[in-house]
């Protein structure tokens, strides 16, 4: 990152090669569209390029920073589209939640990715579902409660339980 701060394009290429796949994968998982995912990843990396001088390693890794920007922008795009197009939520559910089903078919090269995925899949389905709807679907707890016919408190409780178990399952491998 020091080299990127110095406007070293080659160093930035290395950063893209190191984190571009994870960023694209997250954007694609949320948007379900290659073109939108590419736009979002491009925006995120340009933001990194423009703001690299302000990157503070004490506040998290470069990967965490990039993925946070990708997530925010992808969810924002998803919500904007939902507002504009009055998208049918059931269709979204059936499309977006198929990610874990196709997991086995994906060529898996990264141990940490496989570990996180396995930990998520081992959660009780009701906990995994609310977490995925919130994180990958961009739905609020009250929207999820309405979709699933549950009290809002139950949804929030399942989120907390699921995240706690995930944290425990991933253990020391997670950055604090």
């Amino acid at each position, binding site marked *: 990152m020091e080299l990127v701060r110095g*406007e070293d*394009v080659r160093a*930035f290429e290395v950063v*893209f090669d190191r984190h*571009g*796949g*994870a960023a*694209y*994968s*997250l954007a694609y*998982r949320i948007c379900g569209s290659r073109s939108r995912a*590419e736009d979002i*990843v*491009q925006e995120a990396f*340009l933001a990194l*390029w423009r*703001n690299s*001088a*302000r990157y503070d390693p004490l506040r*998290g890794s470069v990967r965490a920073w990039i*993925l*946070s*920007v990708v*997530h*925010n*922008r992808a969810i*924002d795009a998803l*919500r*904007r589209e939902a*507002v504009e197009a009055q998208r049918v939520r059931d269709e979204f559910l059936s499309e977006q939640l198929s990610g874990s089903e196709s997991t086995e078919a*994906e060529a*898996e090269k*990264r141990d940490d*990715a496989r570990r996180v995925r396995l*930990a998520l899949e081992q959660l009780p389905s009701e906990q995994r579902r609310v*977490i995925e709807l*919130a*994180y*990958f679907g*961009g739905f*609020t*707890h*009250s929207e*999820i409660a309405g979709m699933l016919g549950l009290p809002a*408190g*139950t*949804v*929030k*409780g399942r*989120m*907390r*339980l*699921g*995240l706690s178990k*995930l*944290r425990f399952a*991933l253990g020391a491998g*997670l*950055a*604090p």
Partner: protein
Amino acid sequence: MRAGEHPPDGCERSADAAAYVLGALEPAEAEAFRQHLAGCALCQEEIDSLRPAVQALPMSAPQRPAPRPLRRRVMRAVRAELRASAPRRRAFALRGLRARAALGGIAAAAALGIGLGVGLGLSGSPSGRLIRAQVLGISGSAELRLSSGRGELIVRHLSPPPPGEVYEVWLKPPGSKPVPASVLFTVDQRGEAVVGLPGSLRGIGAVMVTPEPRGGTTAPTHSPVIVARLT
């Protein structure tokens, strides 16, 4: 309710912690919880405990390599910015302004959990068009810089947004309601900011800014304080 679904003893608000780190609270709830966090060590501890799990979630997505054309696109844009940045800074004597605004933007985004509004491929060519914007009801000045159909809003000596609010940018097509530009910003201590607008501004009649609650809204709830007319 099963064991574990109760909030931890000591603070009933910590039941909102998981939804908060997942970004799943309603905007007003998120703001209230954010304020609560400032004075509640228990909830902050809960947040610190859960956040790593949320930060790991992206890796649960099926991993795909970034397409090669995307890599070329990104690097082409980076090189273009690098070439354009020096003359732009000289021409407009705004050295450091972007960095300061970026700092404000990052800090705001980090604090508010919102996305950064950044422009794509903004050209710094001298042929860019500069539009003076109207500033309504607050002090300061604003200009919209256009280049290759994309825009950058530059504000100076602008009053900060009211406490608990941020500035939100809107794009208004002629004859239609404004749509969110997905850009929230605040200003630094000197009232300065440079705000890149994502996407093309072709077909947009005006760029507007309103103060809105942190996290932004999907429709303006206040009258605009900045209006830049493109047509």
